[in-house]
């Protein structure tokens, strides 16, 4: 039998770090990818919040003398055909992406939670009706529904958020409904009933908090996909209108003309989208590992 180094095995299992800072550093090592994701997310959020400080130029300011400048010390990511600083636009674009991502996810999740909770808790015809509605919303791919909705509502930030949020409802509602149904059968909910607690209070106090973990996992996963959807909509010319520096729009149309002559116009916004989404996905993955015990390895 090979000798076993108990100490290193235990360290790998995290035994030496049960709380505090050591626990945190252990978790960071254990979920290295998730930590990387978190760092990326924090960076993007920081970028969005302090965009005015980080950006070195006005993202909308046109400069005919600095058109299509290649990346340099003055313009880290070059300039676009208007002479606008790409770095500044990407930094400000983080605001748009995060506004849409967080806004749509929050809106979609909130509505989804309401629909799912009501549907799962009330059952009967309300449930039937809500289920049909989620069926209907789910029968169209996210992008298709979002496309038709932005076309109907017109391109603007709030409208894009709404258009992306609505298709998110059914997924959230399904998860919450299934959870609610399962929770309803659990003894602690029955115990609450047996002490004569009102249904609404049970739903809010006992059911809702216990759906939070799957909700958070789902919302993080959706955050990435909303950012991607916004980028796709903008790419198709239906998202956030100019002059707001949406990453998807930066990639579409005008930038596409410079695919070869000014590749930085194609590369940096694409990298920004991918990295932001990658970050949320990494983080969401780790979060799911931690919060969803079924996935625990």
């Amino acid at each position, binding site marked *: 039998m090979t000798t076993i180094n108990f100490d290193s095995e235990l360290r790998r299992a995290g035994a030496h770090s049960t709380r505090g800072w050591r626990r945190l550093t252990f978790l960071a090592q254990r979920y290295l990818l998730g930590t990387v994701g978190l760092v990326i997310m924090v960076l993007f959020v920081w970028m969005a919040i302090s965009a005015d400080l980080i950006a070195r130029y006005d993202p909308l*300011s046109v400069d005919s003398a600095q*058109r299509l400048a290649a990346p340099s010390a003055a313009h880290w990511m070059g300039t676009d055909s208007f002479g606008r600083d790409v770095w500044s636009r990407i930094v400000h674009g983080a605001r748009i992406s995060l506004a849409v991502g967080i806004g749509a996810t929050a809106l979609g999740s909130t509505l989804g939670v309401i629909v799912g909770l009501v549907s799962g808790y009330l059952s009967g015809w309300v449930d039937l009706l809500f289920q049909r509605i989620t069926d209907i919303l789910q029968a169209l791919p996210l992008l298709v529904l979002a496309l038709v909705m932005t076309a109907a509502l017109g*391109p603007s930030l709030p409208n894009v958020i709404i258009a992306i949020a609505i298709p998110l409802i059914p997924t959230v509602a399904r998860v919450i409904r299934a959870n609610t149904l399962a929770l309803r059968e659990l003894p602690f909910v029955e115990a609450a009933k047996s002490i004569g607690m009102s249904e609404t209070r049970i739903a809010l106090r006992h059911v809702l908090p216990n759906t939070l973990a799957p909700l958070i996992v789902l919302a993080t996963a959706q955050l990435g996909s909303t950012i991607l959807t916004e980028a796709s909509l903008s790419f198709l010319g239906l998202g956030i209108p100019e*002059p707001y520096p949406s990453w998807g729009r930066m990639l579409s149309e005008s930038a596409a*003309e410079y695919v070869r002559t000014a590749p930085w116009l194609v590369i940096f916004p694409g990298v920004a989208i991918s990295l932001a989404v990658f970050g949320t996905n990494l983080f969401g993955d780790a979060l799911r590992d931690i919060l969803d015990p079924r996935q625990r390895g």
Partner: protein
Amino acid sequence: MRSVHALAAAALLLLPAYDLASAGEPKQGGILRVYHRDSPGSASIHEGATYSINIPFMPVFNNLVIFDQHIAQNSQDTIRPELAESWAWSSDNKKLTFKLRQGVKWHDGKPFTSADVKCTFDMLMGKSQQKFRQNPRKSWYDQVSDVTVNGDYEASFELKRPQPALISLLASGYTPVYPCHVSPAEMRTKPIGTGPFKFVEFKANESIKLTKNPDYFKKGLPHLDGIEFTIIPNRSTAILGFVSGKFDMTFPTEVSIPLLKEVKSQAPNAVCVVEPINVSTNIIVNSSSPPFDNIDIRRALALALDRKAFVQILFEGQADIGGTMLPAPGGLWAMPKEMLESIPGYGPDINANREEARKLMQKAGYGPDKRLAVKVSTRNIPVYRDPAVILIDQIKSIYIDAELDVVDTAQWFPKVARKDYTLGLNLTGNAVDDPDQSFYENYSCGSERNYTNYCNKEIEKLFDQQSAETDVAKRKKLVWEIDKKLQEDVARPIIFHARQGSCWQPYVKGITIMVNSSYNGYRYEDVWMDK
């Protein structure tokens, strides 16, 4: 101008004139592969107002007369007979008579007669039973009282007053003769013409195919077996296709300056030209409500414009600055440079101009601490949006904080018609480089395309005066005066006149890109491929 203008050169024109580049014996055959920038709404040239329709469908038709396809600058001197063998003005300049070619057959085999001519123009004037769904150039025939026929091979236009420019309008690519026996609806989907190529199919968003008309009345033409347009809306994809040899030619007058560079680096042998397209980019100012009802603010706006910067950013310098009429050398009617620079805002010293503009703004009650907030409305298309972005940046210097209001195509004209805008960024295309067309369309009181509702009775009189003027030199003077006045009134400040590139592979011969119109040069009957 001569009172009677006659030209009988039918036989001569059967031999097409080539420029030097395409000299040599034309080779027969081959399919010309061109990409198309978008999917045109229909195949009916009369119902469209974009060269997206003209380019693929002009080869299907013939006009009564046409601008010479190999002389780049369209003018009355370059008008050639086509379905008409000759034309003549009456002595009072109020009747224009065409003698028609005999033996011409429509693609479906029916003979072409004067009835077709009458049908076409009656429909354009809105006089016939059958109606176009839309008739954008109805106003071209405002001065025509009637079209009459005399036998099968003579047709005349009766005018209310002399209008020498009419013949230019008839020579535009926009003015093909339609068959009387085919309904407008069919013309939108399966056009029948007399032209060098027959329509084969039009798959929306996919392709348009034309094939050689073996019975074309010009013997020996066309050289090509057919033309195939592949619809590729994404410009960079399209260009990649061209440089990789999938296409013989780009969509004419559609290659932007940056893409042109790419073509040059990727396909150095390709032949590329950059020419004005006679489309002006201008600002429509809502002068019927505050703040731009104030002439001072309008003037300040005009003074704040740095036209060179626009041209530099959007065209790397390759665009023209001028008034309403297309600037020289492409344009025929532009005012001289000194005269242009005397107009406020056109002067070379931008800083001085802006200083003056700021003074005007301060006079109107604005300043660094009390900035004016407005919206710049424009369509959700890059050629509209991009200059609007620059405009917004430029007027920041005169205390105006503008926000871009991007309007969906479907809502743009209704919105403009409602006067639901403050500043708008607009493009105005001119099919024919002629003052009649631009003045009446865009500046006359009551014209549908006069979005700003600019109405000045004095200028209106000058419009009529120049229109009836048969002496070209005198007419030019009048036109300059009108143009300057229009700019000074800030009726619709012109920012620049765009230029666009066109490229084709070196083996493609017989292409001439017009320099003062992008609607007229696509008959392609004598284009051939040297391979």
